[in-house]
C-alpha cells in the first residue's frame, strides 16, 4: 500500500467514523444517563435522510436538507418522548427498549408508505462537488466536508459537556443518577435535552450520509448495528467513548474491506468480540457496565 492510498483509506475511515460518531454519541450519553437504548435510533437517521431528500427536492438547496433532516428527527424524538417514554419512566429499561424495537418495524413501513420502496439519491451540493488533491491523488471534497463537520461537532459537544451548566448536569447524572437527583438536579430534563439532541444528530447524520450512501427503507438497520457496536466498544456514557469507538470501528471497517475483502463484513464484529472479551465494559466505560 503506497503512502497516497494509505492516506486515502485513512480519510475514508475517518469519514465513516464521523458518521458513526454522530449516531453513537446520542445513544451512548442517553444510555449513561438512564440505562436506556433507543433501538429505533437508526430510524431517526433514515427519517433525517428522507426528509432532507424531500427538502432538497423541493427547494433545490442542500442547506434546506441540512436544516430539515435534523429538525424532523428531533421533532419525532420529542414526540416519542412525550407520548411514550415519559409515561414509561417507572417501567424497567428492558420494557422501554422493547418498545423502541417495535418502533423500528413501524418506522420502516411508514417510510415505505410515504416515499416508496426504491432507493433514492441526494446529489452532492455543487459547492462541495469538486475534488481536492491529496499527495497526487484526488479526493472528493464532500467527504472532507463530512470529516470536518464531525470533528467540529465533536469539539462543540465536548465543550458543551465540559463548560456548560447542562453539560455539568449530564456528567453528574451519568456519574450517579440517584445522587444527582437527591442533590436537586432534574436528571429527567437533562435526559430529555440529550435525547432530543441525539435524535437531531442522527437526523443530521442521515442527511450528510445521503449523498455518499443510498437512501432506502431499511438503511436504518444497516447503520444501527455498527452504531450499537460503537456504543458497546467505546463504553456507553461518555463522549470520548463514542468518539474513539467510532474511530476504531470506522477504521476497522474501511481497512478490513481493503486488506482482507473476504472477511470485511466480519472485521467490526471481530473487533467488538475482542474488546468485550478483554474489557466487558468497553474501552472507556463511564462506570461499571451492568
Amino acid at each position, binding site marked *: 500500500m503506497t503512502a497516497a492510498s494509505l492516506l486515502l483509506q485513512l480519510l475514508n475511515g475517518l469519514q465513516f467514523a464521523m458518521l458513526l460518531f454522530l449516531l453513537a454519541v446520542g445513544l451512548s450519553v442517553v444510555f449513561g444517563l438512564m440505562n436506556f437504548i433507543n433501538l429505533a435510533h437508526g430510524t431517526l437517521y433514515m427519517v433525517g435522510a428522507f426528509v432532507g431528500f424531500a427538502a432538497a427536492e423541493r427547494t433545490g438547496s442542500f442547506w434546506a436538507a441540512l436544516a430539515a433532516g435534523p429538525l424532523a428527527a428531533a421533532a419525532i424524538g420529542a414526540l416519542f418522548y412525550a407520548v411514550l417514554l415519559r409515561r414509561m419512566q417507572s417501567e424497567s429499561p*428492558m420494557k422501554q427498549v422493547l418498545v423502541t424495537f417495535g418502533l*423500528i*418495524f413501524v418506522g420502516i*413501513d411508514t417510510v415505505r408508505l410515504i416515499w416508496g420502496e426504491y432507493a433514492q439519491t441526494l446529489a452532492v451540493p455543487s459547492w462541495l462537488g469538486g475534488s481536492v488533491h491529496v499527495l497526487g491523488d484526488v479526493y472528493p471534497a464532500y467527504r472532507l466536508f463530512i470529516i470536518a463537520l464531525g470533528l467540529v461537532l465533536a469539539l462543540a459537544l465536548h465543550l458543551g459537556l465540559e463548560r456548560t451548566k447542562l453539560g455539568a448536569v449530564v456528567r453528574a447524572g451519568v456519574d450517579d443518577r440517584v445522587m444527582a437527583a437527591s442533590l436537586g438536579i432534574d436528571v429527567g430534563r437533562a435526559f430529555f435535552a440529550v435525547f432530543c439532541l441525539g435524535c437531531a444528530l442522527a437526523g443530521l447524520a442521515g442527511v450528510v450520509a445521503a449523498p455518499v450512501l443510498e437512501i432506502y427503507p431499511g438503511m436504518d438497520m444497516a447503520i444501527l448495528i455498527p452504531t450499537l457496536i460503537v456504543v*458497546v466498544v467505546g463504553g456507553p456514557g461518555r463522549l470520548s467513548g463514542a468518539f474513539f469507538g467510532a474511530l476504531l470501528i470506522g477504521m476497522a471497517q474501511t481497512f478490513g474491506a481493503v486488506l482482507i475483502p473476504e472477511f470485511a*463484513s466480519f472485521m467490526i464484529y471481530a473487533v467488538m468480540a475482542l474488546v*468485550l472479551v478483554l474489557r466487558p465494559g468497553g474501552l472507556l466505560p463511564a462506570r461499571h457496565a451492568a
Partner: protein
Amino acid sequence: MTATAEKHRHIAAAALFLGALAARQFSGYAGADLIGEIAVWAIFAMSLDLIAGYAGMVSLGHALFFGLAAYGTAGLTLFLKWPSAAALPASILIAAAAGLLVGTVVVRLGGVFFIMITLAFGQIGWAYFLSAPSFGGVGGLSGIAQLDLGSIGLNLVNPRDFALFAIVVAAIVYLLLAGITASPFGYMLVALHQNENRARALGLPVRRYKLAAFTLAAAFAGLAGALQTQRTGFVSPELMVWTSSGEVLIMVIVGGLATLVGPAAGAAIWVVLRHYLSSLTPYWMLVMGLFFVAVVLFAGNGLMGLIGRRSRRPNTIAEVSLDA
C-alpha cells in the same frame, strides 16, 4: 411459581396440542402447511422462553441459531450428501456449538447490553450468509431432502404429514423444557434472574448456569431451524435476519414469558395474524410493530398473564420478567 399455576399451564398445553391435532384433521393442504409452520415457530419460541422468560436473558439474536441449523442441514445434505437422518441431529449440534461460542461472550453482559450484543451477533450471521456465494447468497439454497419416515407411514413432503410430525415434536419439546424448568437447574435460572447478586452470594456459578441455558436454548432453536428446512426444503439469509429474532420475541411476549405454553400459543396467534395481514396489506410490518408496542405496554404478561389474572395469584416470575 406455584404448583397450581404449573398445573394450569400443563392443561393449557394439552388443550393446545389437542386443538392443533383437531385443526390439522379438518384442514386441507394450505391449512396444514400453516399448522406445520406454527409448530416450528412454537418450538423456536419455547426455546427463547427458556432464556428470556426463565433466565431473564432477552435475546434479539435468537434467529442466528435457528438459521445456522437450517443452513447446517442444507450444507450437510446438499454438499456432503449426508442422509437427512444424520444431518438433522448434526445441525442441532452445530447450533448448540454456536450457542456455546456466542454465549461465552454474551453471558458476561446483562440487561440492555445483552439485547444489543445479541442483536449484533444475529446480524453477523445474516451478513455472512447474505454474501457467502457457496451458500447461495441472497437467494439461498433449495432442494433439501426430507427425512424418510416411510417406516411410520409419514411422507414429510405432504403438509398434512409434516404438520402431524411437527406437532408431536413440539409436544416433546414442551415436555422436555417443562422438565428442565421444573428441575433444580431451572429453579437456579429463575433465582439468578430474580437476583443475580444474591444467587452469586449463595455460591451459584452464575455464568456457567447462564451459558448452559443459552447453549440449550440455541440447541432447541436449532431443532426448530432444522425442522423448517423439512417443511420448505429451502434456506435463505432471511431465516436469521433481525426481524426473525424480533418476531420470535414477539411471540414469547404476546404469549407470556416463563410459561412455555404461552409462547407456543403466541406462535399460533402470530403466524395466523401475519398470514392474514400480509395478504391484506404490504405494510403488515407497521401493524405488527404497533401490535408489539401495545402488548409490551398494556398486557402485563401476555396471554398467560391475562388468564392468570383471574386466579388473582401473583406470578412471581411474571412480575420480574422484563426487569433488567
